[in-house]
């Protein structure tokens, strides 16, 4: 457990806010269980990634500036998403490369902005969060989390420490699920075909539940599962870590 009481602002993300508020509730619960003082700024909206991902950098900058202003004084900011964390840490500096003041703010926020699993393992130095969940799960590496942030072992350590759980790895566990932000609606057929591959791999591994750290991937995969009536569930890591069954 953390020695000192840390104060952290929680960044729910727009998808989390609108579609998966339970992910936020669970993340807050887990962080508090670990002694973190969690705050939430109600002026929060989105990190700006949809515009950036589609090539509209001016629009992305406007929204990003709002985020930079919002978290100027936060000690830590925690997002339950590898993708939104990547937006802030990797792409904000790129977006503001020609604006020295904003760039300075972006580089400064970069140091304080963490993805949920990363924060627990690297900052709090905790692996066992006191969860228990006797089910067979597989972990899906979301692309930004894995390749932009290099976070691969942290979620696995956290899952591995959950009592009663069985973590099974699926084949090609680092293959993209096909969400890809606006890719999911620009190339919907390809996007769904990629999800089908991912879900097949999860089933073949014998998993009951596919766990990931990004609401985008989970919304996409759950949508295919629901449409096709597949015997598989999805769950955000924060939801899993809040379980005490």
């Amino acid at each position, binding site marked *: 457990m953390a020695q000192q009481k840390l104060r952290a602002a929680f960044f729910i993300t727009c998808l989390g806010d609108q579609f998966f508020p339970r992910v936020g509730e669970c993340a807050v619960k887990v962080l508090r269980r670990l002694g973190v003082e969690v705050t939430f700024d109600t002026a929060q909206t989105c990190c700006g990634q949809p515009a*950036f991902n589609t090539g509209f950098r001016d629009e992305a900058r406007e*929204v990003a500036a709002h985020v930079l202003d919002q978290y100027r004084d936060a000690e830590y900011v925690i997002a339950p998403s590898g993708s939104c964390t990547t937006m802030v840490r990797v792409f904000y500096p790129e977006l503001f490369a020609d604006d020295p003041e904003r760039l300075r703010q972006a580089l400064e926020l970069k140091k304080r902005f963490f993805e949920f699993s990363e924060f627990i393992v690297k900052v709090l130095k905790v692996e066992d969060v006191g969860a228990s969940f006797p089910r067979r799960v597989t972990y899906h590496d979301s692309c930004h989390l894995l390749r932009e942030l290099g976070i691969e072992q942290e979620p696995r350590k956290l899952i591995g420490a959950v009592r009663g759980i069985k973590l099974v790895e699926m084949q090609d566990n680092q293959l993209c699920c096909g969400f890809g*932000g606006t890719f999911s609606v620009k190339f919907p057929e390809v996007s769904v075909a990629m999800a089908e591959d991912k879900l097949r791999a999860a089933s073949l591994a014998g998993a009951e539940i596919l766990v990931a750290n990004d609401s985008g991937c989970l919304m996409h995969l759950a949508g295919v599962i629901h449409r096709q009536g597949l015997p598989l569930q999805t769950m955000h890591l924060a939801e899993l870590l809040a379980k005490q069954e």
Partner: protein
Amino acid sequence: MSETGVQSGEIHERGNTALNNAHLQDAYRSSTLRLYTNRRDASNLVPGFERLRDRARELKHEVMEHLDEYLAQFADNVERNGGHVHWARTSEQACSIIIELAKKAGGREVVKGKTMVSEEIELNHALDAAGIRAVETDLGEFILQLAGERPAHIVAPAIHKTRQDVSDLFVANLHSQPTAEPERLTMIARKALREMFQKAGMGLSGANFIVADTGTVVVIENEGNIRFCTTAPRIHVALVGIEKIIPRLTDLGVFLRLLGRSGTGQKLTSYTSLLTGPRRAGEDGPDEMHVVLLDNGRIATLADEKMREALFCIRCGACLNACPVYRKIGGHAYGWVYSGPIGALITPQFTGLSGARELPFASSLCGACRDVCPVKINIPDLLLHLRSNVQEQTPAPKPPGSLVKERTAMRAWAWVMKRPRIYALASSLARLGQRLYARQGWIRHVSAFPLSRWTEGRDLPALAPESFHTWWRKHETEK
């Protein structure tokens, strides 16, 4: 008749055609997976493979910073070795230079080793129009020439063809007996090609590398046909994109160690030829050696400080094999010569943004390509950069089923996202609105773009009954 021009605008239709063809899906999946796995295993066996990649990247960076000087040095050395250098700004210029040389060579035939640049400039069509027959001697290219298709992959051009497809093509065009045995198919092609090697007055190759400090053209291959093309005919012409240059012969080792392993998982390909000038007295080889150096959009790419990195590419094809989108839509969907992640980068650069505006979007930006790139090109980042260029420079058509243009929609979205109160209001209104659609927490069909595209193949979760904002206000502000 084989296809010409840039058809990248049809990526959606062509991609879906491939996606719905089980035969093609099998061919792409098994071949890309085999090459991907071979690369992984081969690179894992090399201690310091990462350092090699970094070194290659540094060298490419050095080249791009001083491209003019290295090219001049190369040209001087080629001339000193007794060869000739020709500069071509455009495809047309390159084609006419080669046609002139072919006429001078006197033969009615030109034998060709596998060269993507010749596909890029549509050389076969130009030769054909000039009454000269181009004969592809690479087995994959030979198959595609019979089929009238473009390469579907940078290093494995006929990756999408099964043995049965090849047999059918040979029966129809070469009147051979049907067979599904690769060895027998190869022998049929070999027999047809041998004659041509002996008849042709000119051999044409590409180049994997050209070396500035020695004037050497380096070609690698597995079939031996390139060595044949570059040595048997009286004239050898190497057609080369200017970005293929490396500074010194001593740098070649870095690239050779990366290229074979990245492309096919081979330590070295079966043949590596270093061609330095025409034959000298008492030696075998061509009487004349010509190098055609092609720009065709490369200098414009060099001028773009960000996109310059795309010129680092050594055409190993590893990014295609790693790409989950390429594996699904296949090479022809990209609508030009280069496919996969690198094709999505360089096609808009070389052929213009407007005709290829969809390509940078044909990626989930997963980054698997960057993981395998031997020169560590930051492909997803460059694709994002191109997306932004596309939105700024080419008018976006209104998406089908959409009331407004994408830009208008994004502007409105950004306007809302900067205003937390409006965001909260929109969030409440959307909850009212979705009552018409949602059943037990799910939405099966939405008719308005872009969600219409979402619900084509997936269900959409309904917005949660209350947002996190609402939950927080209820539970936290009371405390």
